[in-house]
């Protein structure tokens, strides 16, 4: 055995040096394939992202033309003078400069006199070589391994459980057979056991009474629970037309609730944002980043699916992502309402958000962690009243009512009055 495993000394050396050579050659060839000056690339990318990318993309037309491989189409010197001061270039009567200005409907590009020639050359270098690739490849590799791990773990547990259960059953039946072989009397089956219990039960009147009381209490408990659930939609999570994730928007990207639900501060309703509010960002963001994910209706939506969801928004807003213009053909997005107070209860968002200074999360729960929104609170009257009883009213800076507040706190013997003490428990406040 030993002699087979061990190679002779020179053979081992040869093998080692060969693998080393192979490895070295491979790494060298990788380097040779994309010999990118990463420093210049990074510098150019930084400048491009901060200065140019609000109007230009590498791969497609945006506010301005696409800039990928722009050096194949224009001279570097022309580009440098255009970027530094395109107004001056146009004024000098340069035909190309005037043509491109006309092509983009005379929308002027900002001048960048602060950029040095070296800066501009770095930017142009970046437009030629593009984004660094290795990082992206590594990231997708890491993602793949994560996915594999996630898939593997539940199966392993199921198999383990099945093996244990089968093992226990085999051992139990073996033990039983052994004891029967040793001469123990055959154990009676479950069926005959149950029959004995049933006969005993039929004869015992006390047990009958107990059973009736038990059934009456259980049905009262269950019935009361069911009836109090009528009209209460806590946990209601309807399927929406567009797989919109509040987690991505307000959790990961920290967009304020009121950015989209802007009427909450002035109006009874918090408002569903119209598509133009979505387009404030999505005019620019037509696809999600590689690692964006959301749970939607039991499935995990990745980049492929989510890009289609953004396309649905474009369809509704009438935005043509190819030509970057509105077609004028819009159609409403039919969002399904999650929170619905009965019509007989009056609720006003501005009263709670602006006047009361309540956080949205107080009633709506941690929406910033929800991929699909569900109703967090029961929205029952008891729930409203509980909060009104506990919440202290901030009376600072409200001089008009100072006297009333003082009298009320004297009457109730408290420092600051609660909403309920201010009348937040009166029927007519919400039901009229």
């Amino acid at each position, binding site marked *: 055995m030993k002699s087979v495993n061990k190679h002779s000394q020179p053979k081992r050396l040869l093998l080692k040096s060969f693998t080393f050579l192979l490895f070295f050659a491979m790494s060298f060839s990788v380097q040779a394939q994309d010999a990118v000056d990463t420093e210049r690339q990074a510098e150019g990318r930084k400048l491009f*992202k901060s200065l140019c990318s609000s*109007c230009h993309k590498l791969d497609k037309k945006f506010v301005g033309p696409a800039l990928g491989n722009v050096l194949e189409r224009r001279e570097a010197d022309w580009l440098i003078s255009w970027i530094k001061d395109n107004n001056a270039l146009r004024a000098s009567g340069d035909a190309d400069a005037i043509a491109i200005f006309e092509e983009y409907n005379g929308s002027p590009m900002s001048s960048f006199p602060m950029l040095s020639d070296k800066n501009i050359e770095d930017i142009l270098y970046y437009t030629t070589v593009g984004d660094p690739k290795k990082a992206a490849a590594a990231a997708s590799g890491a993602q793949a391994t994560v996915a594999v791990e996630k898939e593997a773990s539940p199966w392993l547990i199921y198999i383990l459980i099945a093996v244990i259960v089968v093992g226990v059953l085999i051992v139990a039946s073996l033990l039983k057979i052994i004891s029967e072989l040793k001469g123990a009397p055959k154990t009676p089956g479950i069926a005959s056991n149950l029959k004995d219990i049933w006969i005993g039960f039929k004869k015992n009147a006390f047990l009958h009474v107990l059973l009736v009381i038990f059934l009456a209490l259980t049905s009262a408990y269950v019935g009361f629970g069911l009836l109090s659930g009528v009209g209460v939609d806590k946990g*209601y999570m309807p399927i929406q037309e567009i797989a919109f994730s509040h987690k991505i928007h307000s959790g990961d*990207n920290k967009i304020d609730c009121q*950015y989209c639900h*802007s009427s909450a501060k*002035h109006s009874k309703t918090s408002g569903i944002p119209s598509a133009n509010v979505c387009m404030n960002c999505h005019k620019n963001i037509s696809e999600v980043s590689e690692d964006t994910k959301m749970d939607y209706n039991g499935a995990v939506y990745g980049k492929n699916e989510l890009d289609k969801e953004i396309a649905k928004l474009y369809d509704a807003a009438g935005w043509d992502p190819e030509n970057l213009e509105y077609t004028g053909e819009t159609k409403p997005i*039919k969002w399904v309402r999650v929170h619905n107070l*009965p*019509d007989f209860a009056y609720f006003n968002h501005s009263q709670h958000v602006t006047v009361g200074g309540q956080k949205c999360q107080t009633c709506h729960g941690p929406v910033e962690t929800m991929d699909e929104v569900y109703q967090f609170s029961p929205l029952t009257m008891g729930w409203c009243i509980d909060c009104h009883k506990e919440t202290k009213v901030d009376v600072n800076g409200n001089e008009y009512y100072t006297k009333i507040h003082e009298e009320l706190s004297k009457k109730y013997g408290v420092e600051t009055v609660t909403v309920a003490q201010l009348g937040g428990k009166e029927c007519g406040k919400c039901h009229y």
Partner: protein
Amino acid sequence: MNNFTKITFALVAFLSIVSCGDKRSRSVQYMPDMYVSVPYEPNGETGINGEPSNLKPVEGSVARGQVPYDYPNTNDGYDAALKNLKSPLEKNDENLAKGKVMYGIYCATCHGTKGDGNGVLAQREKFNGVPNYKDRAITEGSTYHVIMYGRNLMGSHSSQLTIAERWQIVHYVDKLRNDLLK
């Protein structure tokens, strides 16, 4: 035996019918006509003649409390606003404080809390090329104009803000820009 099985069956059937905990549908409503509003509701699907009730107002109509904005959405309009448009609001601490709150909600995600163009969306590279206020020759008039109509990548924010709120934000942007220029 018969009684027992019957009761069990009845209980199981009763429970399975009424206790459907389906999160995709609403629970049973008692007297649904008390839940659903008879008047049209905002964002409702049905409205006048089956049309949604939250459509745009008739062209040319001015909502209560609104003042028409006369500068057109063109380069010339921008230049005119840059030169001529002045804030009708008094520059005081109250307006500045309100402007700060509004700025935090509507602007800071991209422009950054300091106005240096380094908001969360810029940091996460969702939105690139957000300018630093100090790099742009902006006035209160041009800031207001851009909030009204948007410019380049920025969209119009007029639908989310009232006139007073826009000017409060303008005051705060002015302050941020002066701080950055120091």
